[in-house]
C-alpha cells in the first residue's frame, strides 16, 4: 500500500495537523511519501522522516506560498498518479478539505472527510467520520481502489519512529486556470496559538460582560499556552473576532482541555466542543447546562475565580 500525505505549512513551518497526518499514514502501514508545496524550511521537510515519511517531495514554486486551492489540487492529483499511491491522507482544513474533494474527483477516488481514527481494514476499508456536528459518528466503507482521507485533529498520535528523510524536488507544470482565483490579501492573527490547532482552549461567553474584561481570560490562556475562543453572542456583539467563535456555526475544536468561562452551554455551543478530551466549566449559575457536559466544574464568579486560577497555574510552572 502506497500512501501520499499532503503536508501544509505556514511561514516555512510544517503544521502540527499535517504531522498528525504523517503519523496517521505511518500507523496505517505501507510506504509513506509526504509532499509539501511552496517555501518550507529544509530541516522541517527532512524532519517528516522522523514521523514516518520515507520520502519527501517538495514543490518549491513560490507562487504556491499562497494556498491556491486549484493549483494545489493540480499538483496533488499529479503526484497521486506519479507516485502510484493508493491513498491520499491530509488534514481537514480550509485548504486541505477542498483540495481533498478536487483530487478525489480527478483521481476517481472514494472520499471521506472528518475522519476521527485509523481505518479498520479487517474486512474492506472502513473509516469512522464525525457527523451531526460531533453528536454522532458514521462508519463508512471506501470501496474504490483509490481513496482520499481527510482527518480531524487527534485522529492519530504524533510519534517519532524514524530518522530524517531526504528531500526530492518535484515539479508540476501549472496552467493559467490554476491561478484564475486571486488571493489579494491575507489577514492572519500572528504569534498567537491558532484555535483549531490548540491543545488547550480558554473560551469566554456572555457572562464575561464585555470585551474590556477579556484581559483575565488572555492571562489565563497565556499561562497555559492556550488559544482563546468565545461563544456566538460574544462574536456577534463584536467583543471578539468571528474566527474565535466556537460551536455549531463556528469553529469545531478538539483540544486536550477546553475551559469554558461564563458560557451557559447551549446545545449549539456544545456541538463545537464535544470532541474535547477534558472540559472545565466556570459559571456562577449551578444550574448552567454546561456542567452536564463537563469533567470538572467550579460554581463561582469568573472575575474572582479566573485570576486565582491563573496565579495557581503560574505557581506550578
Amino acid at each position, binding site marked *: 500500500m502506497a500512501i501520499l500525505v499532503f503536508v501544509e505549512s505556514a511561514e516555512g513551518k510544517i503544521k502540527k495537523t499535517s504531522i498528525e497526518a504523517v503519523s496517521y499514514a505511518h500507523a496505517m502501514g505501507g510506504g509513506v511519501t509526504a509532499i509539501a508545496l511552496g517555501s518550507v524550511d529544509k530541516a522541517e521537510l527532512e524532519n517528516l522522516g522522523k514521523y514516518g515519511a520515507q520520502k519527501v517531495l517538495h514543490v518549491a514554486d513560490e507562487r504556491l506560498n499562497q494556498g491556491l486551492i486549484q493549483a494545489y489540487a493540480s499538483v496533488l492529483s499529479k503526484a497521486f498518479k506519479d507516485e502510484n499511491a493508493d491513498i491520499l491522507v491530509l488534514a481537514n482544513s480550509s485548504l486541505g*478539505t477542498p483540495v481533498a474533494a478536487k483530487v478525489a474527483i480527478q483521481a476517481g477516488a472514494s472520499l471521506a472527510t472528518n475522519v476521527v481514527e485509523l481505518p479498520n481494514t479487517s474486512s474492506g476499508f472502513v473509516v469512522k467520520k464525525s457527523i451531526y456536528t460531533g453528536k454522532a459518528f458514521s462508519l463508512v466503507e471506501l470501496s474504490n481502489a483509490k481513496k482520499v482521507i481527510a482527518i480531524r485533529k487527534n485522529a492519530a498520535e504524533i510519534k517519532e519512529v524514524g530518522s530524517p528523510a531526504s528531500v526530492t524536488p518535484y515539479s508540476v507544470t501549472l496552467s493559467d486556470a490554476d491561478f484564475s482565483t486571486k488571493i489579494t490579501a*491575507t489577514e492572519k492573527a500572528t504569534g498567537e496559538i491558532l484555535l483549531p490547532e490548540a491543545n488547550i482552549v480558554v473560551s469566554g461567553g456572555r457572562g464575561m460582560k464585555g470585551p474590556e474584561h477579556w484581559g483575565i481570560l488572555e492571562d489565563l490562556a497565556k499561562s497555559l499556552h492556550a488559544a482563546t475562543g468565545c461563544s456566538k453572542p460574544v462574536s456577534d456583539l463584536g467583543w471578539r473576532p468571528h474566527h474565535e467563535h466556537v460551536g455549531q456555526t463556528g469553529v469545531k475544536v478538539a483540544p486536550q482541555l477546553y475551559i469554558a468561562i461564563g458560557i451557559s452551554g447551549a446545545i449549539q455551543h456544545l456541538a463545537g466542543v464535544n470532541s474535547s478530551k477534558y472540559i472545565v466549566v466556570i459559571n456562577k449559575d449551578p444550574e448552567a447546562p454546561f456542567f452536564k457536559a463537563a469533567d470538572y466544574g467550579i460554581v463561582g464568579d469568573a472575575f474572582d475565580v479566573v485570576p486565582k486560577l491563573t496565579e495557581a497555574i503560574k505557581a506550578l510552572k
Partner: protein
Amino acid sequence: MKILVCISHVPDTTSKINFVENNTKFDSNGVQFIIGPYDDYALARAIELKEASGATVTVLNVGLADTEPTIRKALAIGADDAIRVNAEPVDSLFVASQIAEHTKGVGYDLILMGRESIDFNSGVVHSLVGELLGMPSISPVMKLDIVGSAAKLSREIEGGKESLELNLPFVAGCQEPIAEWKIPNMRGIMSARTKPLKVVEASAVSSGVKLQKYELPPAKGSVKMISADNVQELVSLLKNEAKVI
C-alpha cells in the same frame, strides 16, 4: 443573473440524534427539520443580490418528498422556483453529482451553498460540484460582492481571513456574516404555494462510499465539582488526574 442555491433539509440544531434499524437509519421521530443554517445564509445573500440587481433565484434540494415543506420555506423567503431531485442524499459525491447533472447547460452565474450541512458535515459538496462543473469553488465565504462579471470575496481561514477575486461563474459555500437570515412574511408564504417546484429523477451514481452503521459517542461520566475557594485542587486534578497541563 441566474443564481442557484442548494439547500439541505436537516434536523433542527437542538435535535437529539438517535438511530433506528440497527443503527443504519436516522430516527426522525419527533425531529423538526429546517433549511441548513449555513444554506440559509446562502439563500439570504442570493435574495439580497436579487433585490439589488434583479437576479433570478432557483433553489435545489436532493431529497425525498418529505423535504418539500423545507423547499417551500425557501420559496417563501424569496426564491423564484425550485427543483427537487428525487433521491435520498446518501453521500456527498452522490449529492454533488445530482446537483452538477441538473445544473449543466442551464447557465447559472453563481451557485451558492452553505459551508457545510449539519447532518453529514462533510463540507465538500460545493468543492465537488465546482470540480464536476469545471468552476472554481470557494468556502467558507463571509462576504460576497459582485461587480459586473467579477466577484470580490472574503473567506475564513485558520485564525483569520483571505480576500479573493475571481470571475463568474463559480460556486461558494457561505457562512455568517455574509447576510442576515431572512424570515418569510405572510405574503411570501402565500405566494410560495404557487411557485413552480419541479421534481426530477436522480441519475445513477456510484460514489465508492457505503454506510455500514451509525454510532453515538460514549456517555459522559459525571462532573467533579470543585469549590471556588480551592482552585488549587482544580490545578492538581488537571495535572495529576487528567494530565493535560
